[in-house]
């Protein structure tokens, strides 16, 4: 059940641009393309064109001279792992990286030379003895090595780390981004972007921040540690063996009275859900059985029955003490205010505001009113000649009742209100005083079944 793609690292929407003659594109499936590249000794990578289903085999990688990576939405670039990974699996005999210095800092001797050290390794198409790069042509247990340019030291190990030791994991390894691609029992992992042999919900596009790259071990579901689906049809998934970081974890700011983002660092003592249902203790399995055992999730601070977010849910939550309501959020905990400090004030709706504040309430810089990017404004100086739409200053040309605003320099935020507040003592008229008849010019309708038609 192993996919030939398993031997490749994928770069999405990327094309490798190089000067030498471009190879032709042959129409075939992506796995067939990988199969062909895997068997050809001079194939190091391939482009796959998802629009034309074209396969282009490449004799070079991003580390080859005179190559450049370029964005191209139609192409994915697949490179053989040995050429792009900076750690080794097993004895590293498939290592094809470009390290050329030993662990003690000695420069490697080029493999084609017999001086200062004569040797018996011929340069063959399959052994990768290029330039003076570290290699392991004799399957040495210590991994890739080289002859050194120091006449006194014949050869030395390059000290390239094993992938399971190269990157360590903290907490439960949700942030593990290393290159281990096999489970603790040695089964190769299934690629996250494939649905065979095991169908699964963890599509890489759906979980962009989880980095479900290739077939590397990851922890997208807050399991105890990183894991993967395996290529063995009889074994759906298994944990991977990854070193735990011994150094102190990065200090992330915790909060007790409010929570930021999803509240994964909330450490307060609220212990009821939004509507006041008491929480179940994390160390208890009744009324709800669960796998969030405090001792297995040390970094998550699953103390008592406090609201916590050990699994990246939308907000702190807990299992409830009601048997028919398994979990509920603790939305009553306030979000920490993330608005920036205001620097000015406005009267009324701020339609007369002529100040120079030019950032939004979130601290994003405003776009100049006359500019066309990142957003193409529908409100611009020529259209509103009476309003001084200068520079990128906050203004209120449309008399927005929520105050001055601007287009922002953030691609994802078209416009936003500014870091300005209503001036003290400037009271807006109450809306509750004025309840005259209002005309409804649009309507929401639904088909209700008439009671007489029910029977």
């Amino acid at each position, binding site marked *: 059940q192993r996919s030939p793609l398993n031997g490749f690292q994928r770069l999405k929407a990327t094309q490798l641009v190089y000067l030498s003659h471009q190879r032709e594109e042959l129409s075939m499936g992506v796995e067939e393309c990988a199969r062909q590249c895997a068997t050809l000794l001079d194939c190091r990578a391939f482009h796959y064109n998802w629009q034309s289903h074209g396969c282009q085999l490449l004799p070079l990688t991003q580390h080859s001279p005179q190559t450049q990576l370029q964005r191209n939405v139609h192409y994915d670039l697949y490179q053989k792992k040995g050429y792009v990974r900076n750690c080794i699996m097993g004895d590293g005999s498939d290592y094809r990286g470009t390290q050329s210095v030993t662990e003690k800092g000695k420069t490697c001797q080029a493999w084609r030379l017999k001086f200062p050290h004569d040797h018996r390794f011929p340069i063959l198409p399959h052994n990768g003895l290029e330039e003076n790069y570290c290699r392991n042509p004799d399957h040495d247990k210590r991994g890739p090595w080289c002859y050194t340019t120091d006449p006194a030291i014949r050869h030395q190990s390059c000290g390239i780390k094993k992938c399971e030791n190269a990157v360590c994991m903290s907490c439960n390894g949700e942030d593990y981004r290393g290159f281990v691609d096999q489970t603790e029992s040695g089964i190769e992992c299934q690629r996250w972007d494939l649905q065979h042999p095991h169908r699964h919900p963890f599509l890489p596009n759906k979980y962009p921040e989880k980095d479900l790259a290739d077939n590397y071990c990851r922890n997208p579901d807050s399991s105890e540690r990183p894991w993967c689906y395996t290529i063995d049809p009889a074994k759906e998934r298994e944990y991977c063996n990854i070193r735990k970081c011994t150094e102190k974890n990065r200090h992330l700011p915790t909060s007790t009275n409010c929570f930021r*983002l999803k509240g994964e660092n909330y450490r307060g003592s609220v212990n009821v859900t939004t509507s006041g249902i008491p929480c179940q203790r994390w160390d208890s399995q009744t009324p709800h059985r669960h796998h969030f055992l405090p001792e297995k999730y040390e970094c998550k601070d699953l103390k008592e029955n406090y609201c916590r977010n050990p699994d990246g849910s939308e907000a702190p939550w807990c299992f409830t003490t009601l048997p028919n309501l398994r979990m509920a959020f603790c939305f009553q905990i306030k979000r920490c205010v993330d608005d920036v400090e205001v620097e000015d004030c406005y009267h009324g709706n701020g339609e007369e505001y002529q100040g120079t504040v030019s950032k939004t309430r979130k601290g994003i810089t405003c776009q100049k009113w006359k500019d066309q990017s990142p957003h193409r404004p529908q409100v611009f100086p020529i259209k509103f000649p009476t309003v001084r739409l200068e520079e990128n200053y906050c203004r209120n040309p*449309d008399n927005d009742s929520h105050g001055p605003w601007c287009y922002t320099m953030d691609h994802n935020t*078209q416009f936003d209100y500014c870091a300005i507040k209503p001036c003290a003592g400037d009271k807006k008229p109450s809306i509750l005083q004025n309840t005259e008849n209002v005309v409804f010019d649009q309507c929401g309708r639904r088909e209700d079944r008439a009671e007489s038609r029910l029977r």
Partner: protein
Amino acid sequence: VVGGTPGNSPWTVSIRNREGVHFCGGSLVKEQWVISTRQCFSSCDADLSGYEVWLGTLFKNPGPNDPDKQAIPINKIVCGPSESLLVMLKLERPAILNQRVALICLPPERYIVPANTQCEIAGWGDTQGTGNPNVLNVAKLPIMSNYECKILLRDRLKESELCTAALRISVGACEGDFGGPLACLTHDCWVLEGVITPSRVCASKDRPSTFIRVSLYVDWINKVMKLS
């Protein structure tokens, strides 16, 4: 919804996380726009890829072959004015309107719903043993004036909120209904007058419920739809 009955609310949508689990409600105000509440989302520029809005289904967990279900990915989140606690969600593609999926209209700007107007809330949230926990439940609630409500809540009420009357039995929104609509029938039209916000109690009797007053933010809602 506590104290409701299985019902029809074609503008009420279910917001689902990446695992397909319902976590909040919302209201369809345009084919490509849903209104919900800020508390349901981690940030104003959260990456919501993988999150979806489900429309057209009455079931909390519809089967894979439910012909009425429309699952549409969320493309973008826009936060409302800070005190509003509203968010607008832009859908990746427009919803297809039909018997089960309909738009709800917005109130006129700064419109005050008269007291005693009949309204209803809808959601797939906790029922506390009432209604049917597997389907969309709807409950009727009459509007209470801010003046009366303020007295009952001992002054803890803003103009940007509106109230429904305290009833003798427990009726109201609960866990999982947050972000959903308070829809009121005015001039034969269903109007989105309120948005359900997280509250400290689910439907306690003899106590009014509060909602975000949508009419105060209609200008912002229209502006977002026009500019984005």
